[in-house]
């Protein structure tokens, strides 16, 4: 099993699917020669040619609209939105069209598109290039939302996303592209809608997504030194959400902390908490259900403020300690 970066894992998924299925093609800004803003598609244009690695004008609406049309006619486009912030320009195509087509045509149409997008803060890119808009997408019926945190998950989930007959928003994190990990070669799909228990524990459950997964795991290591064993669950897919795995964990630990980078109000942590609070895990709760999310502010450019605006490892430790020690 080779070790590779998150970006390389994504590239290997794209390459394998493009090799396996001639209907698969890529579209996006600067994804050819330049290899995309984060280098994910680097070299693929040489390998598959400009017909299958298509560079587009700077118009996200065009990218997703064209992908939608291609998919309705039988192709399997993988679109790249350079910064997740710009997915807002595609909402009519994505929400009003792609998410609805299957249902409005009585199941006769399918929309097998993947919209990859780079989200999250931490690069000093300021408020318009640092957002975590996944909660917005989670709200839309008809869209699937995937958010991998490791190279292995990135590859396995992208393979499944490309093969899925529905529009899938594939949320990557800018700070994760360079992280390394072991990735299986070949056809290692991970089903969409299956959470992964990244760490076993008995004292509290932390549900974390994207960049918050490595932070939660680092926090868990520190807490373990204090004798607090937290279980870390990465839902991997925010929609469909694997509530069962989370509920099973909370039944065991009696405590839940949901951590995400997206700002708190209307964030998907609320959805997780409501699901757990109304499940059979309720009777096993020994602490209030808590969430730790980004501040309800545009991401600041200032590096210190940018860090303060989103949960960091120390924040996760503090919150987890508080629920385990019954201080809240």
């Amino acid at each position, binding site marked *: 099993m080779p070790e590779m970066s998150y970006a390389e894992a994504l590239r290997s998924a794209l390459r394998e699917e493009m090799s396996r299925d001639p209907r698969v093609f890529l579209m996006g800004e600067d994804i050819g020669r330049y290899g995309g803003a984060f280098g994910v598609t680097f070299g693929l244009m040489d390998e598959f040619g400009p017909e299958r690695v298509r560079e587009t004008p700077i118009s996200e609406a065009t990218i997703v609209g064209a992908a939608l049309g291609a998919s309705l006619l039988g192709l399997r486009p993988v679109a790249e939105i350079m910064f997740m912030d710009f997915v807002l320009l595609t909402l009519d195509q994505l929400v009003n069209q792609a998410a609805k087509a299957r249902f409005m045509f009585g199941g006769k149409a399918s929309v097998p598109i993947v919209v990859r997008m780079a989200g999250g803060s931490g690069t000093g890119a300021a408020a318009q290039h640092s957002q975590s808009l996944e909660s917005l997408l989670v709200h839309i019926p008809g869209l699937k939302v995937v958010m991998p945190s490791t190279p292995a998950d990135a590859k396995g989930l992208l393979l499944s996303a490309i093969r899925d007959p529905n529009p899938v928003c594939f949320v990557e994190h800018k700070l994760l592209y360079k992280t390394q990990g072991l990735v299986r070669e070949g056809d290692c799909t991970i089903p969409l809608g299956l959470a992964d228990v990244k760490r076993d524990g008995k004292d509290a459950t932390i549900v974390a997504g994207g960049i918050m997964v490595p932070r939660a795991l680092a926090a868990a290591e520190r807490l373990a030194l204090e004798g607090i064993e937290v279980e870390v669950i990465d839902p991997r897919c925010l929609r469909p959400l694997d509530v069962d795995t989370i509920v099973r964990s909370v039944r065991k630990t*009696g405590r839940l902390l949901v951590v995400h980078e997206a700002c708190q109000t209307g964030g998907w942590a609320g959805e997780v908490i409501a699901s757990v609070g109304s499940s059979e895990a*309720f*009777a*096993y*709760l*020994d*602490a209030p259900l808590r969430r730790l999310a980004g501040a309800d502010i545009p991401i600041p450019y200032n590096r210190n403020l940018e860090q303060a605006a989103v949960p960091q490892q120390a924040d996760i430790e503090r919150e987890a300690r508080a629920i385990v020690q*019954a*201080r809240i």
Partner: protein
Amino acid sequence: MATPFIMPKFDMDQENATIVSWLKQEGDSVQQDEPVLTVETDKVAIEVTAPAAGRLAAIGFREGDVVPVTTVIAYILAEGEDVDGLPSPATPAKAPARHGAAPAAKRVTPVARRMAEDLGLDLGQMPGGSRRLTKADVESLRKSVPPPPGKAAATPAARRLARERAIDLREVSGSGPRGRIQSADVTRAADAPHAPPRRTGQEVQLTGMRRTIAERMQASFREAPHISLTVETDVTALEQARTRLNGRAGGEAGPGISLTATLVRLAACALERHPYLNASFQEDAIYLWTEINIGVATAVPDGLIVPVIHGANRLSVTEIARELQHLTEKAQSGRLDLADVHEGTFTISNLGMFGVHQFRAVINPPESAILAVGAVTRRPVAAKGGNQVVVRPIVTLTLSADHRVLDGVRAAAFLQELVRAIEAPDTLLE
């Protein structure tokens, strides 16, 4: 400016006082130095007077509350003032500057402080003492506070466990924030051995006096190795002398001279030559007191108090009898001043009036000896200088002494001199 009314400190080592009764009520007008409430300290019940003239307001403590000294217990308002904006009573006030005495702040462990905050409990209500208040104290205070009506605060897991294990949550003490019951609390309660059926009985609160007696006697018994020596002595001559004195005083309104009064006089005179029985053992040394101040154990409704006859060796028996009468009356009406119970150096305890033949008393610290006096009974004894048996009034005296201060020989020598004086009392009693 409203005048804060603080719980005064009457004695150097006093930490608390118990409010016995309020003589004035909220809103009453009071004159400066007019008695406003009575309090009970370790030693005495005292009337506390108003620090200023005005209207009594914002009374923060009720009868029976134990209040640390210097705590604001109420305010005295001048004309036109009201309580708005005043810190509520129970906020500890600064101790009045006196010999640099530190304010009597409560010593509380950090855990106990946090628990008290979480539970919303006022540690000011806790009896202090020199000891730090701990988690256990907060726990016991929490148990003494009735739970708020309605449902107990508990996590869902605790509720499920309680249901499964048939535990009444109202009887579980919660360790979570604001006393919330956690699942571990239920498990602990369920696993605890079942309490035996509640025994019936009456719980008597330790008042200041009862608590003091308990603490001091316990300390005395623990710290002072008691030796006790018993003698029997013929009180024929003493009784005759007493009758004579009483007959002489018969026309006057003065009190009769009791056996106790004569013993105070005789013991005081004997102590002049036996300083180790008029002494105190302290950490670094034995203190032999110059003054001979004899305390007389006196029963009061809910305990015992020892008023002191100061300089008893310099008083005549008639003066002692008068003083004793006066102090006993004050004791029984709870009006003893601190000076009346101060600085005793030797104690006499007489249970003879109850027919007790003989008993051993516990030394009243920091004194070094106490004399227990039994009943005078007519007993057959061998007549002096003959082989005849005669019937005489005899009393049994038992001296308890602190072995750290003196040995049996010194105690015996004192008893011997006392017996001699009792058997030939005339010169000392005239």
